[in-house]
């Protein structure tokens, strides 16, 4: 319990960019374990808060199924409905199928509260945070060493776990309809910069590059994959015509 409280205290200090917090984490006996516990605790807390917020949001909006059925009831009375029914009854059946499917997909895409996903978040959010932490940590470590950093991988992962601290702002999602927005990402990036600078004894310019290079690499890979994907699709479609 003391370990968890100690980690949360470190997280709070890291949030305020206090270098001591990053130094303490880097110098601790098992920064990876400490970091992992911190991330899992933060992840579970924000998922639980998100679940409460999603539940309240769901209870604050009208039933989407009722809206869907009301709109459909009136649509069936519109003049075009009869005209299509006489010409092609199959088209109406297909329309109805797409209409129902659309209502299953689009509200979720546009942020309609989904209690099921929020429950799943209790597992998926901590898991996602841990996976992101490991991948980013590994890439940042490689770039830091490349640019002259002196920290070990465990130190790097330890300090980068503290960069997850701004995720704690997501506890505010307990308030329904509150959009936390980009603040978590920006603050997290700044914490990562501080952590990497401390763990690897880097100058500010090198630390900034080490912080950004993993993102630049991922974006470059995604763009390349997008280019290849669209080129392959273009060739495939061109071959068919």
């Amino acid at each position, binding site marked *: 319990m003391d370990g968890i409280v100690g980690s949360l205290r470190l997280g709070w200090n890291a949030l*305020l*960019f*206090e270098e001591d917090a990053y130094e303490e984490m880097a110098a601790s006996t098992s920064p990876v374990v400490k970091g992992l516990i911190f991330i899992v605790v933060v992840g579970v807390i924000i998922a639980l808060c998100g679940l409460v917020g999603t539940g*309240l*949001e*769901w*209870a*604050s*909006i*009208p*039933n989407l199924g*009722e*809206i869907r059925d*009301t*709109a459909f009831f*009136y649509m069936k*009375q*519109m*003049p*075009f409905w009869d005209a299509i029914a006489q010409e092609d009854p199959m088209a109406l059946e297909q329309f109805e199928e797409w209409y129902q499917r659309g209502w299953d997909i689009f509200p979720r895409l546009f942020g309609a509260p989904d209690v099921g996903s929020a429950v799943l978040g209790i597992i998926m959010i901590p898991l996602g945070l841990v996976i992101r932490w490991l991948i980013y940590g590994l890439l940042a470590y490689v770039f830091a060493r490349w640019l002259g950093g002196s920290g070990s991988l465990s130190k790097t992962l330890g300090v980068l776990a503290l960069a997850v601290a701004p995720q704690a*702002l997501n506890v*505010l999602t307990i*308030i*329904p*309809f*509150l*959009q*936390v*927005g*980009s*603040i978590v990402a*920006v*603050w997290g990036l*700044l914490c990562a910069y*501080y952590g990497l600078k401390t763990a690897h004894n880097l100058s*500010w310019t090198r630390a*900034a590059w080490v912080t950004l290079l993993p993102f630049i690499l991922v974006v470059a890979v995604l763009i390349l994959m997008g*280019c290849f994907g*669209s*080129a392959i699709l*273009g060739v495939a479609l061109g071959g068919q015509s």
Partner: protein
Amino acid sequence: MSAMLNTLLRTITLDDSAYQEWRERPNLFLRGIVLIAIVILVAGLIVFAVNLVNLVRAPDLGQIEEQIRQGFEMSSRFNPAMQNMPPEVQEMMDTMIELIVPMVSDISSIEAPLPRGISGLFQATGAYLGRVLAALGGWLFYGALVLIAANLLGGSAKLPHFLGMTSLYIIPGLLAVLRPVPCLGYLLALIGTIWSIVVYIKAVSIATDLDAGRSILAVLAPFIVLFLLGILLSVMGVAWLAIVL
């Protein structure tokens, strides 16, 4: 408390000693966060109250009906395609309008499980507090970029200290509380924005020990770079689409 308020008010008049006093206070970064949160909450109080009243009140079905009819009337008056419609199409449109009005009314009267008062309060509060987080996110993001520019121009400051200093920019934003005032509100909000930029430049100058000219450059540089980057990405996107299509 009153000493701090006095310091904050003097920063608006660009009083050097006020900036120095603020600089020497402990936990400057945390103070900056609290300052921004309080100013945004105060400045948005009237908008929050108006939103709350609108969201808590039951929808006026008569007004909704009137708005839909007015919308169709406007489009039939100004859209040439709707003016020259054959009579049978016009009849079909009229029937559709007759159905759309009750459809929208029926959908508007579907109730949520929670009473309208509570769900309205949730929605208004969510939007109200969301503005604080957006302002803090923007302050962190732009502040980090300005600090990079300031460092490249020869200045130096620690990030939390720098951010704490630049948080002073928010004080003239209090003028935004008058935004709902007709005509004058927007003018006052504009004056507040310009004033905020001036306070930001002054804070950068004090925090990084740069002269006024370099501070202006450091504050404007991220905006210029982001603007040019936006143009570059748009051009690249259009070029890629032209190649693919």
